[in-house]
């Protein structure tokens, strides 16, 4: 019977060009295999040290290795010296991106964020559809990635008194913004603070969102690229986080920072759109980080259970089966969001929210299952537990994501069905 099934599969589906929508194309799978090999060679040995100590030089070294391998220029078009080909995007959407992120997170989710924050910082430039700004910064990024200090981007929206507010359209109306830009000859002057900015202290360029008008708040939000070393721009405290410790979260301080006109991303007042569309594109990636970390915890547990002879136990089979099912459901949703273009905001929110929730549940249950060893550091599950928790928080808490999912129904007057 099995032969009949495989014959049917070959003759009736494969030959007709039918493709399993839940299976990555061969090119993406090849990319995954190369990436795994690289991670094993270049990152696996550093994970403990990256988790335990904040060493900027060490984090920079990991970035340098990634830059040389081409991981920091995946979004930079080939014409500017990067790896991005439009045809690939038409073929796979963001699938390659979420596979990349999941694999990085399976090795170390802090490293996934270290690289991912760079992508996040670059996205508003693409979404501005302004060739001048792309031409201004992308060749420099590509060139620097071949040198000693990669030109890393960071994405700065969160403010000390406006976290979820700047990720939630409803909440944004009452947001207490503290970062403002005012017009000056030939550019703008920025004042204010941003907090929890991933890679903010390592970045060469920061995409900063600032309001032009206090009364209009985020409606007047405008994005700017601020270079490291610009007078008045400094890095404040580096946060001591529960997990994802390979990726520093920095406070950024702007005191009368002059930004020239040609560093503005998109027109004035376009910041809110750029912010929302950036997050719509990146949220499936957050889901992929959660799934990568949880998958790694699952694989460690499976190997241990096999070694201990637990796999013949029905309770173990039931627990592992249930966890695997939920992670696979999360991956399905992340992949669906990744191949949907233009991104569906509600689907992006679902993918981030569901994948991070099931990943958190998975890590928690795997620690229970392997107790008491699973809570000890060398086992590796406790790191996944600490790391995954952040995926339920950043880019909008999962509470905000649920409201985001409900948003289209409000636009329809609240009467439309899902």
């Amino acid at each position, binding site marked *: 019977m099995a032969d009949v099934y495989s014959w049917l599969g070959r003759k009736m589906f494969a030959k007709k060009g039918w493709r399993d929508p839940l299976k990555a194309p061969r090119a993406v799978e090849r990319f995954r295999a190369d990436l795994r090999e690289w991670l094993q060679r270049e990152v696996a040995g550093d994970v403990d040290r990256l988790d335990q100590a904040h060493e900027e030089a060490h984090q920079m070294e990991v970035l340098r290795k990634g830059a040389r391998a081409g991981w920091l220029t995946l979004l930079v078009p080939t014409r500017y010296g990067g790896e991005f080909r439009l045809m690939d995007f038409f073929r796979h959407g963001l699938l390659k991106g979420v596979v990349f992120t999941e694999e990085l997170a399976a090795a170390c989710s802090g490293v996934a964020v270290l690289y991912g924050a760079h992508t996040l910082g670059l996205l508003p430039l693409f979404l501005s559809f302004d060739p001048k700004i792309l031409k201004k910064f992308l060749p420099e990024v590509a060139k620097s990635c071949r040198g000693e200090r990669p030109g890393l981007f960071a994405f700065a929206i*969160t403010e000390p*008194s406006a*976290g*979820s*507010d700047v990720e*939630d359209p*409803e*909440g*944004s*109306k*009452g*947001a*207490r913004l503290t970062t403002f830009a005012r017009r000056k000859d030939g550019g703008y002057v920025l004042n204010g603070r941003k*907090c*929890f900015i991933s890679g903010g202290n390592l970045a060469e360029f920061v995409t900063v969102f600032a309001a032009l008008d206090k009364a209009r708040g985020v409606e007047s939000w405008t994005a700017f690229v601020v270079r490291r070393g610009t007078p008045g721009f400094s890095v404040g405290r580096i*946060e*001591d*986080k*529960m*997990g994802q410790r390979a990726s520093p*979260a920095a406070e950024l301080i702007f005191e009368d920072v002059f930004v020239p006109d040609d560093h503005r991303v998109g027109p004035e007042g376009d910041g809110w759109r750029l912010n929302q569309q950036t997050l719509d594109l990146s949220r499936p990636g957050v889901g992929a980080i959660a799934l990568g970390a949880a998958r790694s915890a699952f694989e460690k547990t499976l190997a241990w259970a096999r070694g201990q002879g637990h796999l013949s136990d029905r*309770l173990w089979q039931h*627990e592992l089966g249930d966890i695997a099912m939920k992670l696979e459901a999360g991956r399905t949703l992340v992949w669906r969001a990744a191949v949907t273009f233009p991104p569906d905001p509600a689907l992006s929110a679902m993918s981030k929210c569901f994948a991070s929730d099931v990943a*958190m549940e998975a890590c*928690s*249950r795997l*620690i*229970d*299952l*392997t*107790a*008491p*060893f*699973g*809570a*000890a*550091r*060398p086992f590796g599950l*406790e790191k996944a*537990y*600490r790391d995954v*928790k*952040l995926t*339920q*928080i*950043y880019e909008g*808490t*999962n*509470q905000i994501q*649920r*409201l985001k999912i409900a948003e289209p129904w409000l636009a329809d007057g609240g009467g439309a069905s899902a």
Partner: protein
Amino acid sequence: MTQEAVFDEVARSVGQLTRAELPGRLARLDSPASAEAWQDLAPVLARYGLDVRPETRALLAEPRATARILGAVAQECAGVASALWADYAAWLPFLLAGAEGVCESDGGGCPGSVGYMAGGTLRLAREADGWRLSGRIGLAFGASASRELTVYAESESEGAFVRIAMNGAGEPEDNLGLRACRLRPGLEVDHTVVGPKILVQSLDGARVLRRRCESIALGWLATIAAANGRAALRGAQAYAGERYQGGGLLAQNPVIRHLLGSAEMRVEAAACLAEHALEQTESGKLPTLAKVFATQMGEQVCLDAIQCLGGYGYMRDYGLEKRARDAKTLCTLAGSNVHLLAEAGGSAEEVAPRG
């Protein structure tokens, strides 16, 4: 001094301890240097009456009174409460059997000097000059500076609680949480016990005593988990009452109110079940259910409290991430929740209703 007077004095002491002594020590107790931090803390705990001294032993044998002490300490630091838990649980068989005098260790009851071995049974054999103990202890848990361990061993006709030295145990592991304590992996035991460090009973008597001790220990853990969750909830409530979001106080946001209400329901249910379990320590099943329920609820409440604070909740400064790590580690003590539930589900014992 009456038992009530001793209890009142200790309760007052614990209040003072958590206000004055613990807050400044939390960061060191939650670090790989926790063994040194514990060495500094132990005499302070003893000064506040939390050691196992002759006047407080009767109190420790009263499960609900001890639960109140552990709960009060856990409101400040679940790691310290868990180290005391391991210590008290290790003393319990001797206290309940009225045989504490036979087991004075070199530490003389210094807080955290004795660790707890969950589950597992060593082999016991009578020899001419004492008792021979052999077998392997999978894991011991106790304060990061504990030097001794209470273990349980059985022969064909007798059961024994024995205090042994921790020498030879593996290097302590760094945990996800409760870092004032340490897990110590694999300890091979094969030596003769001579002298007063052993309590031997008939096999039936020893098994009944062991079951009662384990039930009390599970009830205490449930209390610690509920107290840790309650403290996380209070932190989230305080934040929500001060933080503006979306043009209003976070505490006015219906989503956050629902989250906090749900957390409060879980904490109170866990605390009630823990208290109920400690009234029925002859039962093996109810304390098991209470431990699983309270630790699961405690974990969920701490994770929800972090959500309430958003990014701030994830940062060490706010203390909630430590509460969550502690809560998850509590789930793993004294038997994994998955296996404890399967064990309880297979037991024919009926749980008596409350009251």
